């Protein structure tokens, strides 16, 4: 099973979500995070004095899927999070050794 962790632009979330919904993904978890990669912040000001905001708001998206569907999910995210500008974000994929559904105590792929 794959743990797919994507950092995307907040404004793209509805599109990503819609696309995932069409795929029939099992579930997702999101959080508001901040970050920077190549895109290095913007200049804001406070009482007239300017300063660089180092971190920009992003959405962190966690989806755990079985191996079979991982590529589909990744494609859906990439397609819909894409704008072509610096700051579009990244997806990190790692292995999950076990999944447990609390409600049913099911384990493994059945629990996803």
């Amino acid at each position, binding site marked *: 099973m794959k743990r797919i962790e994507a950092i995307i632009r*907040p*404004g793209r*979330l*509805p*599109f990503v979500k*819609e696309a995932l919904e069409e795929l029939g993904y099992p579930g997702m978890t*999101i959080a*508001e995070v*901040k970050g920077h990669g190549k895109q290095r912040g913007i200049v804001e000001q406070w009482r007239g004095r300017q300063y660089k905001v180092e971190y920009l*708001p992003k*959405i962190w998206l966690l989806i755990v899927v079985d191996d079979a569907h991982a590529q589909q999910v990744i494609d859906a995210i990439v397609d*819909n999070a894409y704008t072509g500008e610096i700051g579009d974000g990244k997806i990190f994929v790692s292995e999950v050794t076990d999944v447990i559904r609390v409600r049913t105590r099911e384990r493994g792929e059945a629990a996803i």
Partner: protein
Amino acid sequence: MTRTLAWARRAAGAAAGALAALALVSAAAAQEPTAEEQLASLAGALDTAWLLVTAFLVFFMQLGFAMVEAGFVRAKNVANILMKNILDCAMGGLAFFAVGWGLAYGVSGDSAGPFAGDGQFFLRGFDNWPSWIFQFAFAATAATIVSGAVAERTKFSAYLVYSAVITAFIYPVVVHWAWDSHGWLSAFRDDPIGANGYIDFAGSGVVHAVGGTAALVGAVMVGPRIGKFGPGRKVNVIPGHNITLAVLGMFVLWFGWYGFNPGSTLGLSGGLADLAAKVAVTTTLAAAAGGVAAALLTRALTGRYDLGLTVNGVLGGLVGITAGCAVVDAWAAIVIGAIGAGVVIGGVWLLDQLRVDDPVGAVSVHGFAGIWGVLAVGLFASEAGIAQAYGESDRYGLLLGGGAEQLGIQALGIAAIVAWTAVTAFVLFGALKLTIGLRVRPEEEERGLDVDEHGIEAYPDFGSSAQGLFVPVAHPGGAD
């Protein structure tokens, strides 16, 4: 055709002075009004202005209550408490229009009985507008006190009924007793109890103790919030969501209190202006003393200056001085305010011990400090103070050598008020419990009342990085 206002309006547009207006008024009347009549009319206008402005200030206290209560509850119940604050004021206005005023001050025949007024329901045959607006603002104050004590768990529909009944019935009857010249407790009765009758200048008892007692009955009957009290004697802490709002509310209340207390002279002419000013000073000093006392007391007790209790302490000082503001000296106001804060802090602790859950401290601030305020008159009223506000008398504060009579009357009065309110509130909440129910379901309480009762979150898009996660900012095609 006389165009008085037209002229006045025009006067605003051009440079015409009041001379013209006056002249016009005179001309309009068949004959010249005498200088004496003109003077009386002007004095009346000034008194009306005072009633209006102070009524507006008292009304503004609604915002203060709303913000203190909102700040002291959790984020998931904010919309609910705000809605209750709007609606108790709005329902209160209609209820006080329909029934409340009539029971408080209404007269159908020659005079009303000692228990309740009996006329002018729906303001029929009524035109004393300045008094109505002023008294409405007080009624709304009494009503709104309860919402905080029963916050975070009470059904909205039950609260609506409660707020109509207290402004229509429970509170007005007490007003009649204590402030109408026919009321059995009234200091304005021709033949009052004792030398002076029950002295409660702006309503530590009539307004605050009524609200506080109803709040206590409500808090007991609704029961504590889930998780407030653990097994054994464990008392959990459930912090509110925004202390800034609570402080905002406190300052608004203090500001509004300058309508509440000084406005209770009900006028300025005939020497009342001096009284109003003195009341403003005693009110200030008591609030200040309450704040300082609470800060120092909490520092002594907990090692830290506690902000939440300092907010409550200022309010306790204000509630405490409300009965006696016109009849005590400046130094006494400081003592009363400081003790008021102490009473509040003790009350908060006591209620926890009794496992009564009052999220905002309404019972302590309005109930306990209200009772203290009424009794303080019996202890601290000065001879000159009573003379200025109520007429010469040799019965005044016990601690100033005026004997125990006034203290006795104060005790009697507040006992009667508390008893009346406790019984009627018990019946009211009991009836609600048996019918529509007082309390939301536990799941609803855990989820917060906002979502289930109002379908809303108070801060759906808050925060520095708020991305409006809930918001469908755009839709990528598709028919719907």
